[in-house]
Protein backbone atom coordinates (compact mmCIF):
# COMPACT_ATOMS: atom_id res chain seq x y z
CA UNK A 1 0.00 0.00 0.00
CA UNK A 2 1.29 3.47 -0.85
CA UNK A 3 0.57 6.11 1.77
CA UNK A 4 0.70 9.85 1.06
CA UNK A 5 1.40 11.99 4.15
CA UNK A 6 0.81 15.74 4.25
CA UNK A 7 3.85 17.30 5.93
CA UNK A 8 3.53 20.28 8.25
CA UNK A 9 6.60 22.38 8.73
CA UNK A 10 7.66 25.58 10.42
CA UNK A 11 10.59 27.53 8.95
CA UNK A 12 11.80 24.41 7.15
CA UNK A 13 11.64 22.17 10.23
CA UNK A 14 9.27 19.17 10.16
CA UNK A 15 6.71 19.46 12.94
CA UNK A 16 6.62 16.78 15.65
CA UNK A 17 2.99 15.97 14.83
CA UNK A 18 4.09 15.03 11.31
CA UNK A 19 6.83 12.77 12.66
CA UNK A 20 4.14 10.90 14.60
CA UNK A 21 1.93 10.68 11.51
CA UNK A 22 4.86 9.28 9.51
CA UNK A 23 5.13 6.51 12.11
CA UNK A 24 1.42 5.74 11.71
CA UNK A 25 1.82 5.75 7.92
CA UNK A 26 4.72 3.28 8.07
CA UNK A 27 2.38 0.79 9.79
CA UNK A 28 0.18 0.90 6.67
CA UNK A 29 2.73 0.70 3.86
CA UNK A 30 5.20 2.58 1.74
CA UNK A 31 5.45 6.19 2.91
CA UNK A 32 5.48 9.10 0.47
CA UNK A 33 5.73 12.54 2.08
CA UNK A 34 4.08 15.54 0.45
CA UNK A 35 5.56 18.94 1.22
CA UNK A 36 3.30 21.74 0.03
CA UNK A 37 4.74 25.13 0.72
CA UNK A 38 6.33 28.22 -0.65
CA UNK A 39 9.95 29.23 -1.14
CA UNK A 40 13.08 28.16 0.74
CA UNK A 41 11.21 26.85 3.77
CA UNK A 42 9.44 24.30 1.58
CA UNK A 43 12.72 23.19 0.02
CA UNK A 44 14.34 22.88 3.45
CA UNK A 45 11.36 20.94 4.79
CA UNK A 46 11.49 18.57 1.81
CA UNK A 47 15.17 18.01 2.48
CA UNK A 48 14.51 17.45 6.20
CA UNK A 49 11.67 14.97 5.63
CA UNK A 50 13.73 13.07 3.05
CA UNK A 51 16.07 12.14 5.91
CA UNK A 52 13.31 10.86 8.17
CA UNK A 53 13.54 7.11 8.71
CA UNK A 54 10.97 5.17 6.71
CA UNK A 55 10.15 7.82 4.09
CA UNK A 56 10.62 6.35 0.60
CA UNK A 57 9.88 9.41 -1.51
CA UNK A 58 9.21 13.11 -1.05
CA UNK A 59 6.93 15.10 -3.32
CA UNK A 60 7.48 18.85 -3.29
CA UNK A 61 4.82 21.30 -4.43
CA UNK A 62 6.51 24.68 -4.19
CA UNK A 63 4.08 27.46 -5.03
CA UNK A 64 2.92 30.66 -3.29
CA UNK A 65 -0.58 29.11 -3.24
CA UNK A 66 0.62 26.72 -0.50
CA UNK A 67 2.25 29.27 1.80
CA UNK A 68 -0.54 28.98 4.36
CA UNK A 69 -1.85 25.51 3.49
CA UNK A 70 -5.35 26.76 2.68
CA UNK A 71 -7.59 23.70 2.51
CA UNK A 72 -9.07 24.61 -0.87
CA UNK A 73 -5.64 24.80 -2.52
CA UNK A 74 -4.09 21.82 -0.75
CA UNK A 75 -7.07 19.55 -1.48
CA UNK A 76 -6.87 20.47 -5.18
CA UNK A 77 -3.21 19.42 -5.08
CA UNK A 78 -3.75 16.17 -3.18
CA UNK A 79 -6.79 14.76 -4.98
CA UNK A 80 -5.09 14.13 -8.37
CA UNK A 81 -2.01 12.73 -6.60
CA UNK A 82 -4.21 10.15 -4.89
CA UNK A 83 -4.57 8.31 -8.21
CA UNK A 84 -1.19 6.76 -7.29
CA UNK A 85 -1.75 6.18 -3.56
CA UNK A 86 -4.02 4.07 -1.40
CA UNK A 87 -4.19 6.22 1.70
CA UNK A 88 -3.88 9.90 2.64
CA UNK A 89 -2.75 10.76 6.15
CA UNK A 90 -2.68 14.17 7.81
CA UNK A 91 -2.10 15.31 11.37
CA UNK A 92 -5.13 15.83 13.59
CA UNK A 93 -4.03 19.46 13.93
CA UNK A 94 -5.87 22.59 12.87
CA UNK A 95 -4.26 22.22 9.43
CA UNK A 96 -4.90 18.50 8.98
CA UNK A 97 -8.45 18.70 10.31
CA UNK A 98 -9.16 21.49 7.84
CA UNK A 99 -7.64 19.79 4.77
CA UNK A 100 -8.30 16.04 5.13
CA UNK A 101 -12.14 16.00 5.08
CA UNK A 102 -12.06 18.16 1.95
CA UNK A 103 -9.80 15.60 0.31
CA UNK A 104 -11.99 12.75 1.56
CA UNK A 105 -15.21 14.17 0.15
CA UNK A 106 -13.60 14.84 -3.22
CA UNK A 107 -12.45 11.20 -3.30
CA UNK A 108 -15.87 10.01 -2.07
CA UNK A 109 -14.25 8.49 0.99
CA UNK A 110 -15.50 8.54 4.57
CA UNK A 111 -12.58 9.81 6.65
CA UNK A 112 -11.38 8.10 9.81
CA UNK A 113 -10.60 10.96 12.20
CA UNK A 114 -8.13 11.21 15.02
CA UNK A 115 -6.75 7.67 15.11
CA UNK A 116 -4.59 6.63 18.07
CA UNK A 117 -3.71 3.13 16.84
CA UNK A 118 -3.51 1.13 13.61
CA UNK A 119 -4.91 -2.40 14.00
CA UNK A 120 -4.63 -3.41 10.36
CA UNK A 121 -4.73 -1.86 6.89
CA UNK A 122 -8.43 -1.01 7.30
CA UNK A 123 -9.01 -1.08 11.05
CA UNK A 124 -8.19 1.75 13.42
CA UNK A 125 -8.75 2.85 17.01
CA UNK A 126 -10.10 6.30 17.78
CA UNK A 127 -11.50 8.04 20.83
CA UNK A 128 -15.10 9.25 20.73
CA UNK A 129 -17.21 11.23 23.20
CA UNK A 130 -14.23 13.33 24.28
CA UNK A 131 -12.25 10.21 25.07
CA UNK A 132 -14.94 8.75 27.33
CA UNK A 133 -15.15 5.83 24.93
CA UNK A 134 -12.74 4.24 22.49
CA UNK A 135 -14.01 2.85 19.19
CA UNK A 136 -12.38 0.31 16.92
CA UNK A 137 -13.58 1.02 13.40
CA UNK A 138 -13.17 -0.62 10.02
CA UNK A 139 -13.24 1.34 6.79
CA UNK A 140 -14.71 -0.27 3.67
CA UNK A 141 -13.53 2.49 1.32
CA UNK A 142 -10.98 1.44 -1.29
CA UNK A 143 -8.82 4.44 -0.44
CA UNK A 144 -8.37 5.63 3.12
CA UNK A 145 -8.30 9.19 4.38
CA UNK A 146 -7.13 9.43 7.97
CA UNK A 147 -6.13 12.06 10.51
CA UNK A 148 -3.65 10.99 13.15
CA UNK A 149 -3.54 12.05 16.79
CA UNK A 150 0.12 12.66 17.56
CA UNK A 151 -0.05 11.39 21.13
CA UNK A 152 -0.89 7.90 19.87
CA UNK A 153 2.36 7.34 17.98
CA UNK A 154 6.09 7.68 18.59
CA UNK A 155 7.89 10.30 16.55
CA UNK A 156 9.78 8.91 13.55
CA UNK A 157 13.55 9.36 13.74
CA UNK A 158 14.73 12.47 11.89
CA UNK A 159 17.85 10.67 10.67
CA UNK A 160 18.37 7.47 8.75
CA UNK A 161 16.35 8.07 5.61
CA UNK A 162 17.59 9.05 2.18
CA UNK A 163 14.49 9.54 0.06
CA UNK A 164 14.53 11.30 -3.29
CA UNK A 165 12.73 14.63 -3.64
CA UNK A 166 10.56 15.04 -6.73
CA UNK A 167 8.74 18.19 -7.74
CA UNK A 168 5.03 17.83 -8.48
CA UNK A 169 2.81 19.98 -10.63
CA UNK A 170 1.00 22.53 -8.52
CA UNK A 171 -2.57 23.32 -9.58
CA UNK A 172 -2.05 26.63 -7.72
CA UNK A 173 -4.55 29.04 -6.22
CA UNK A 174 -8.16 27.91 -6.55
CA UNK A 175 -9.54 31.37 -5.77
CA UNK A 176 -11.94 30.06 -3.14
CA UNK A 177 -10.28 31.65 -0.14
CA UNK A 178 -7.63 34.21 0.59
CA UNK A 179 -5.24 34.32 3.53
CA UNK A 180 -5.58 37.70 5.23
CA UNK A 181 -3.28 37.40 8.21
CA UNK A 182 -2.38 35.60 11.40
CA UNK A 183 -1.91 36.50 15.03
CA UNK A 184 0.44 33.94 16.41
CA UNK A 185 2.35 34.05 19.64
CA UNK A 186 6.12 33.89 19.34
CA UNK A 187 7.37 32.06 22.35
CA UNK A 188 10.72 30.81 23.55
CA UNK A 189 8.91 28.02 25.37
CA UNK A 190 8.56 24.49 24.02
CA UNK A 191 5.61 23.78 21.76
CA UNK A 192 2.57 22.76 23.79
CA UNK A 193 1.77 19.61 21.85
CA UNK A 194 5.29 18.18 22.06
CA UNK A 195 6.57 19.55 25.39
CA UNK A 196 7.91 17.12 27.99
CA UNK A 197 6.46 19.21 30.80
CA UNK A 198 3.34 21.38 30.79
CA UNK A 199 2.07 23.73 33.46
CA UNK A 200 -1.60 24.49 32.92
CA UNK A 201 -3.72 27.08 34.67
CA UNK A 202 -7.43 27.25 35.27
CA UNK A 203 -10.05 29.80 36.16
CA UNK A 204 -9.00 29.76 39.81
CA UNK A 205 -6.03 31.94 38.82
CA UNK A 206 -8.56 34.77 38.84
CA UNK A 207 -7.07 37.16 36.28
CA UNK A 208 -4.74 37.42 33.32
CA UNK A 209 -2.15 39.17 35.51
CA UNK A 210 -2.20 36.45 38.13
CA UNK A 211 -2.09 33.77 35.44
CA UNK A 212 1.17 35.29 34.16
CA UNK A 213 2.56 36.07 37.60
CA UNK A 214 2.04 32.58 39.01
CA UNK A 215 2.15 30.15 36.08
CA UNK A 216 5.11 31.59 34.16
CA UNK A 217 7.75 31.41 36.93
CA UNK A 218 6.84 27.78 37.63
CA UNK A 219 6.93 26.96 33.92
CA UNK A 220 10.34 28.67 33.69
CA UNK A 221 11.66 26.55 36.55
CA UNK A 222 10.43 23.34 34.91
CA UNK A 223 11.32 24.32 31.32
CA UNK A 224 7.66 23.77 30.60
CA UNK A 225 5.12 24.81 28.00
CA UNK A 226 2.06 26.65 29.29
CA UNK A 227 -1.47 25.39 28.87
CA UNK A 228 -4.86 26.50 30.10
CA UNK A 229 -8.34 25.17 30.67
CA UNK A 230 -11.19 26.33 28.49
CA UNK A 231 -12.58 28.30 31.45
CA UNK A 232 -9.32 30.25 31.77
CA UNK A 233 -9.23 30.96 28.03
CA UNK A 234 -12.90 31.99 27.92
CA UNK A 235 -12.26 34.33 30.86
CA UNK A 236 -9.43 35.96 28.90
CA UNK A 237 -6.64 34.86 31.26
CA UNK A 238 -4.77 33.09 28.44
CA UNK A 239 -4.87 33.09 24.61
CA UNK A 240 -6.86 30.45 22.71
CA UNK A 241 -3.82 28.52 21.54
CA UNK A 242 -3.09 27.59 25.17
CA UNK A 243 -6.30 25.60 25.46
CA UNK A 244 -5.95 21.94 26.34
CA UNK A 245 -9.02 19.77 25.94
CA UNK A 246 -11.50 18.04 23.66
CA UNK A 247 -11.68 20.99 21.32
CA UNK A 248 -8.30 22.50 22.09
CA UNK A 249 -4.99 20.72 22.01
CA UNK A 250 -4.51 17.08 22.90
CA UNK A 251 -1.31 16.67 24.90
CA UNK A 252 0.52 13.78 26.53
CA UNK A 253 3.67 15.15 28.20
CA UNK A 254 5.81 13.31 30.74
CA UNK A 255 4.54 15.66 33.43
CA UNK A 256 1.35 17.71 33.40
CA UNK A 257 0.86 20.16 36.25
CA UNK A 258 -2.78 21.30 36.56
CA UNK A 259 -3.12 24.41 38.68
CA UNK A 260 -6.57 25.55 39.73
CA UNK A 261 -8.22 23.33 37.14
CA UNK A 262 -11.26 21.43 38.38
CA UNK A 263 -11.06 18.81 35.64
CA UNK A 264 -14.16 18.98 33.45
CA UNK A 265 -14.38 15.92 31.17
CA UNK A 266 -13.65 18.14 28.18
CA UNK A 267 -10.34 19.16 29.78
CA UNK A 268 -9.44 15.64 30.89
CA UNK A 269 -9.99 14.52 27.28
CA UNK A 270 -7.02 16.66 26.29
CA UNK A 271 -4.47 15.58 28.91
CA UNK A 272 -5.35 12.30 30.57
CA UNK A 273 -2.77 10.37 28.57
CA UNK A 274 0.01 12.38 30.25
CA UNK A 275 2.54 10.13 31.96
CA UNK A 276 2.38 11.85 35.34
CA UNK A 277 -0.35 14.28 36.34
CA UNK A 278 0.14 16.66 39.25
CA UNK A 279 -2.87 18.60 40.47
CA UNK A 280 -3.07 21.58 42.77
CA UNK A 281 -6.60 22.61 43.70
CA UNK A 282 -8.35 23.97 46.75
CA UNK A 283 -11.36 21.68 46.33
CA UNK A 284 -10.40 18.21 47.48
CA UNK A 285 -13.37 16.73 45.61
CA UNK A 286 -12.36 18.26 42.26
CA UNK A 287 -12.51 15.63 39.48
CA UNK A 288 -8.92 16.44 38.50
CA UNK A 289 -7.79 14.45 41.56
CA UNK A 290 -9.38 11.31 40.08
CA UNK A 291 -6.81 11.29 37.30
CA UNK A 292 -3.91 12.89 39.19
CA UNK A 293 -0.93 10.81 40.27
CA UNK A 294 0.05 13.41 42.82
CA UNK A 295 -2.38 15.87 44.33
CA UNK A 296 -2.01 18.77 46.71
CA UNK A 297 -5.14 20.34 48.20
CA UNK A 298 -4.73 23.99 49.09
CA UNK A 299 -4.67 27.62 48.07
CA UNK A 300 -2.73 27.97 44.84
CA UNK A 301 -1.87 31.59 45.66
CA UNK A 302 0.21 30.31 48.58
CA UNK A 303 1.36 27.02 47.10
CA UNK A 304 2.63 28.24 43.73
CA UNK A 305 5.13 30.88 44.89
CA UNK A 306 6.44 28.48 47.54
CA UNK A 307 6.68 25.63 45.06
CA UNK A 308 8.46 27.76 42.47
CA UNK A 309 10.93 28.96 45.06
CA UNK A 310 11.68 25.51 46.46
CA UNK A 311 12.18 23.76 43.14
Amino acid sequence: MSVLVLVEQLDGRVKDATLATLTAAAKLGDVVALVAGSGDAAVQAADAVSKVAGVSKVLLANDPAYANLLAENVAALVVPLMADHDAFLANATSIGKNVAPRVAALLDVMQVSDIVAVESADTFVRPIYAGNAVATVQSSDAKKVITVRATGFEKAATEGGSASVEPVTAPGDQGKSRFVGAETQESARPELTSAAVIVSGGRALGSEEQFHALIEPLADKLGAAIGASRAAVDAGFAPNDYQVGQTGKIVAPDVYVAVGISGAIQHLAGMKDSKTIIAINKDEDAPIFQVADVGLVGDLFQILPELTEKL
Partner: protein
Amino acid sequence: MKLLVPVKRVLDYNVKPRVKADGSGVDLANVKMSMNPFDEIAVEEAIRLKEKGVATEVVVVSIGEPKAQDTLRTALAMGADRAILITSDVRPEPLGVAKLLAKVVEEEQPQLVILGKQAIDDDNNQTGQMLAALLGWGQGTFASKLEVAGDTANVTREVDGGLETVALPLPAIVTTDLRLNEPRYASLPNIMKAKSKPLAQKTPADYGVDLSPRISVLKVEEPAKRAAGVKVDSVDALVDKIKSLGVIA
Protein backbone atom coordinates in the same frame (compact mmCIF):
# COMPACT_ATOMS: atom_id res chain seq x y z
CA MET B 1 -29.36 36.61 2.15
CA LYS B 2 -30.47 33.19 3.27
CA LEU B 3 -28.51 31.19 5.87
CA LEU B 4 -28.61 27.43 6.35
CA VAL B 5 -27.66 25.92 9.70
CA PRO B 6 -27.48 22.12 10.09
CA VAL B 7 -27.96 20.89 13.67
CA LYS B 8 -27.44 17.51 15.32
CA ARG B 9 -29.12 15.88 18.29
CA VAL B 10 -26.49 14.42 20.61
CA LEU B 11 -26.02 13.17 24.14
CA ASP B 12 -26.25 16.23 26.40
CA TYR B 13 -22.94 17.95 27.13
CA ASN B 14 -23.30 17.38 30.89
CA VAL B 15 -24.15 13.68 30.76
CA LYS B 16 -21.28 11.28 31.26
CA PRO B 17 -21.36 8.75 28.40
CA ARG B 18 -21.70 5.11 29.43
CA VAL B 19 -20.36 2.38 27.20
CA LYS B 20 -22.86 -0.43 26.62
CA ALA B 21 -21.91 -3.77 28.19
CA ASP B 22 -21.98 -5.55 24.82
CA GLY B 23 -19.40 -3.13 23.40
CA SER B 24 -21.71 -2.02 20.59
CA GLY B 25 -21.64 1.68 21.44
CA VAL B 26 -22.59 4.31 23.98
CA ASP B 27 -25.91 3.88 25.77
CA LEU B 28 -28.37 6.50 24.50
CA ALA B 29 -31.52 4.99 26.00
CA ASN B 30 -33.28 7.17 28.57
CA VAL B 31 -30.57 9.80 28.73
CA LYS B 32 -30.89 13.51 28.14
CA MET B 33 -30.27 14.52 24.52
CA SER B 34 -29.64 18.08 23.37
CA MET B 35 -28.46 20.14 20.45
CA ASN B 36 -24.75 19.72 19.79
CA PRO B 37 -23.16 22.74 21.56
CA PHE B 38 -21.18 23.83 18.48
CA ASP B 39 -24.42 23.77 16.46
CA GLU B 40 -26.07 25.99 19.07
CA ILE B 41 -23.27 28.48 18.46
CA ALA B 42 -23.95 28.19 14.71
CA VAL B 43 -27.67 28.89 15.19
CA GLU B 44 -26.86 31.85 17.43
CA GLU B 45 -24.44 33.30 14.87
CA ALA B 46 -27.02 32.99 12.11
CA ILE B 47 -29.69 34.69 14.20
CA ARG B 48 -27.30 37.53 15.03
CA LEU B 49 -26.59 38.01 11.32
CA LYS B 50 -30.32 38.28 10.76
CA GLU B 51 -30.72 40.73 13.65
CA LYS B 52 -27.93 42.86 12.15
CA GLY B 53 -29.81 42.94 8.86
CA VAL B 54 -27.14 40.95 7.00
CA ALA B 55 -29.37 37.89 6.61
CA THR B 56 -33.05 37.74 5.82
CA GLU B 57 -33.90 34.14 6.64
CA VAL B 58 -32.42 31.38 8.81
CA VAL B 59 -33.27 27.81 7.82
CA VAL B 60 -32.25 24.96 10.11
CA VAL B 61 -31.94 21.35 9.03
CA SER B 62 -31.37 18.11 10.91
CA ILE B 63 -30.76 14.60 9.69
CA GLY B 64 -31.44 11.61 11.89
CA GLU B 65 -34.12 10.01 14.01
CA PRO B 66 -37.61 11.56 14.24
CA LYS B 67 -36.79 12.97 17.68
CA ALA B 68 -34.33 15.34 16.02
CA GLN B 69 -37.51 17.38 15.60
CA ASP B 70 -37.03 18.52 19.23
CA THR B 71 -33.60 19.87 18.32
CA LEU B 72 -35.06 21.74 15.37
CA ARG B 73 -37.79 23.21 17.61
CA THR B 74 -35.08 24.44 19.96
CA ALA B 75 -33.39 26.21 17.05
CA LEU B 76 -36.73 27.69 15.98
CA ALA B 77 -37.31 28.88 19.54
CA MET B 78 -33.91 30.58 19.50
CA GLY B 79 -35.03 32.51 16.42
CA ALA B 80 -34.60 30.42 13.27
CA ASP B 81 -37.41 30.91 10.74
CA ARG B 82 -38.14 27.42 9.49
CA ALA B 83 -36.87 23.87 9.68
CA ILE B 84 -36.28 20.80 7.55
CA LEU B 85 -36.17 17.37 9.16
CA ILE B 86 -34.69 14.56 7.10
CA THR B 87 -35.47 11.33 8.92
CA SER B 88 -33.20 8.37 8.47
CA ASP B 89 -33.13 4.89 10.03
CA VAL B 90 -29.45 4.64 9.27
CA ARG B 91 -27.17 6.63 11.57
CA PRO B 92 -25.63 8.82 8.88
CA GLU B 93 -21.90 9.42 8.61
CA PRO B 94 -20.44 12.88 7.89
CA LEU B 95 -19.95 12.04 4.19
CA GLY B 96 -23.60 11.04 3.81
CA VAL B 97 -24.72 14.09 5.77
CA ALA B 98 -22.59 16.33 3.56
CA LYS B 99 -24.13 14.79 0.42
CA LEU B 100 -27.64 15.37 1.74
CA LEU B 101 -26.79 18.91 2.79
CA ALA B 102 -25.38 19.61 -0.67
CA LYS B 103 -28.81 18.70 -2.08
CA VAL B 104 -30.55 20.93 0.46
CA VAL B 105 -28.19 23.75 -0.52
CA GLU B 106 -29.06 23.21 -4.17
CA GLU B 107 -32.73 23.59 -3.30
CA GLU B 108 -32.48 26.43 -0.79
CA GLN B 109 -29.62 28.42 -2.34
CA PRO B 110 -28.21 29.89 0.89
CA GLN B 111 -25.25 32.26 0.67
CA LEU B 112 -23.71 30.93 3.83
CA VAL B 113 -23.94 27.59 5.61
CA ILE B 114 -22.87 27.76 9.26
CA LEU B 115 -22.14 24.43 10.99
CA GLY B 116 -20.68 23.34 14.30
CA LYS B 117 -17.05 22.34 13.83
CA GLN B 118 -17.68 18.91 15.31
CA ALA B 119 -20.39 16.94 17.07
CA ILE B 120 -19.45 16.01 20.61
CA ASP B 121 -20.50 12.38 20.18
CA ASP B 122 -18.35 11.07 17.33
CA ASP B 123 -15.87 13.99 17.43
CA ASN B 124 -15.35 13.61 13.68
CA ASN B 125 -14.89 17.25 12.67
CA GLN B 126 -15.62 16.59 8.98
CA THR B 127 -19.09 17.61 7.80
CA GLY B 128 -18.47 21.30 7.07
CA GLN B 129 -15.26 20.67 5.17
CA MET B 130 -16.90 17.85 3.19
CA LEU B 131 -19.87 20.01 2.30
CA ALA B 132 -17.52 22.77 1.13
CA ALA B 133 -15.69 20.24 -1.04
CA LEU B 134 -18.87 18.85 -2.61
CA LEU B 135 -20.16 22.35 -3.38
CA GLY B 136 -16.77 23.66 -4.51
CA TRP B 137 -17.05 26.50 -1.99
CA GLY B 138 -14.47 28.09 0.27
CA GLN B 139 -14.37 27.03 3.91
CA GLY B 140 -13.70 29.01 7.07
CA THR B 141 -13.38 26.37 9.75
CA PHE B 142 -13.08 26.75 13.57
CA ALA B 143 -14.36 30.33 13.47
CA SER B 144 -14.01 32.61 16.47
CA LYS B 145 -15.20 35.68 14.53
CA LEU B 146 -17.34 36.11 11.43
CA GLU B 147 -17.90 39.30 9.50
CA VAL B 148 -19.94 39.48 6.32
CA ALA B 149 -19.11 42.48 4.15
CA GLY B 150 -20.80 42.63 0.75
CA ASP B 151 -20.05 39.39 -1.06
CA THR B 152 -17.21 38.33 1.23
CA ALA B 153 -17.09 36.53 4.56
CA ASN B 154 -14.09 37.35 6.73
CA VAL B 155 -13.50 34.48 9.11
CA THR B 156 -11.07 34.55 12.03
CA ARG B 157 -10.07 30.97 12.78
CA GLU B 158 -8.73 29.34 15.93
CA VAL B 159 -5.60 27.53 14.81
CA ASP B 160 -2.84 25.73 16.70
CA GLY B 161 -0.54 28.74 16.69
CA GLY B 162 -3.17 31.34 17.61
CA LEU B 163 -5.59 33.02 15.24
CA GLU B 164 -5.72 33.27 11.47
CA THR B 165 -8.05 35.23 9.21
CA VAL B 166 -9.27 34.17 5.77
CA ALA B 167 -11.52 35.99 3.31
CA LEU B 168 -14.04 33.83 1.45
CA PRO B 169 -16.10 34.87 -1.55
CA LEU B 170 -19.77 34.00 -0.93
CA PRO B 171 -21.34 31.51 -1.03
CA ALA B 172 -19.17 29.82 1.58
CA ILE B 173 -19.03 27.43 4.52
CA VAL B 174 -18.23 28.47 8.09
CA THR B 175 -17.75 26.08 11.01
CA THR B 176 -17.95 27.39 14.55
CA ASP B 177 -15.52 27.19 17.42
CA LEU B 178 -16.34 27.77 21.07
CA ARG B 179 -15.58 31.45 21.32
CA LEU B 180 -17.63 32.68 18.36
CA ASN B 181 -20.52 33.68 20.63
CA GLU B 182 -22.57 32.66 23.63
CA PRO B 183 -25.85 31.14 22.51
CA ARG B 184 -29.03 32.61 23.95
CA TYR B 185 -31.63 30.70 25.90
CA ALA B 186 -35.00 30.48 24.24
CA SER B 187 -37.68 32.35 26.19
CA LEU B 188 -40.94 30.63 27.07
CA PRO B 189 -43.02 32.77 24.64
CA ASN B 190 -40.53 31.96 21.88
CA ILE B 191 -40.70 28.26 22.69
CA MET B 192 -44.48 28.47 22.31
CA LYS B 193 -44.16 30.44 19.07
CA ALA B 194 -41.67 27.91 17.68
CA LYS B 195 -44.36 25.23 17.75
CA SER B 196 -46.18 26.93 14.91
CA LYS B 197 -43.14 27.68 12.75
CA PRO B 198 -42.93 25.60 9.55
CA LEU B 199 -41.12 22.25 9.74
CA ALA B 200 -40.85 20.23 6.53
CA GLN B 201 -40.41 16.45 6.77
CA LYS B 202 -38.22 14.68 4.23
CA THR B 203 -36.32 11.44 3.73
CA PRO B 204 -32.90 10.81 2.16
CA ALA B 205 -34.73 9.14 -0.76
CA ASP B 206 -36.41 12.48 -1.54
CA TYR B 207 -32.93 13.77 -2.33
CA GLY B 208 -31.70 10.58 -3.99
CA VAL B 209 -28.83 10.18 -1.54
CA ASP B 210 -27.53 6.80 -0.39
CA LEU B 211 -26.54 6.86 3.26
CA SER B 212 -25.07 3.36 3.47
CA PRO B 213 -22.24 3.52 5.99
CA ARG B 214 -18.64 3.15 4.87
CA ILE B 215 -17.27 2.60 8.33
CA SER B 216 -18.34 -0.17 10.65
CA VAL B 217 -17.84 0.08 14.37
CA LEU B 218 -16.31 -3.21 15.50
CA LYS B 219 -16.36 -2.41 19.19
CA VAL B 220 -16.61 0.42 21.67
CA GLU B 221 -14.81 0.18 24.98
CA GLU B 222 -14.22 2.18 28.12
CA PRO B 223 -10.88 3.95 28.02
CA ALA B 224 -8.12 2.55 30.23
CA LYS B 225 -8.52 3.89 33.74
CA ARG B 226 -5.66 5.65 35.47
CA ALA B 227 -4.45 4.07 38.67
CA ALA B 228 -5.35 6.01 41.81
CA GLY B 229 -2.78 8.58 42.78
CA VAL B 230 -1.61 9.91 46.11
CA LYS B 231 -2.28 13.18 47.85
CA VAL B 232 0.62 14.94 49.49
CA ASP B 233 0.09 17.32 52.39
CA SER B 234 2.78 19.94 51.89
CA VAL B 235 4.68 21.85 49.25
CA ASP B 236 7.89 20.17 50.46
CA ALA B 237 6.43 16.75 49.80
CA LEU B 238 5.30 17.91 46.35
CA VAL B 239 8.79 19.25 45.61
CA ASP B 240 10.25 15.85 46.53
CA LYS B 241 7.78 14.12 44.21
CA ILE B 242 8.57 16.43 41.32
CA LYS B 243 12.30 16.01 41.85
CA SER B 244 11.87 12.23 41.90
CA LEU B 245 10.34 12.43 38.41
CA GLY B 246 13.66 13.71 37.12
CA VAL B 247 12.20 16.60 35.18
CA ILE B 248 14.47 19.15 36.80
CA ALA B 249 18.10 18.95 37.68
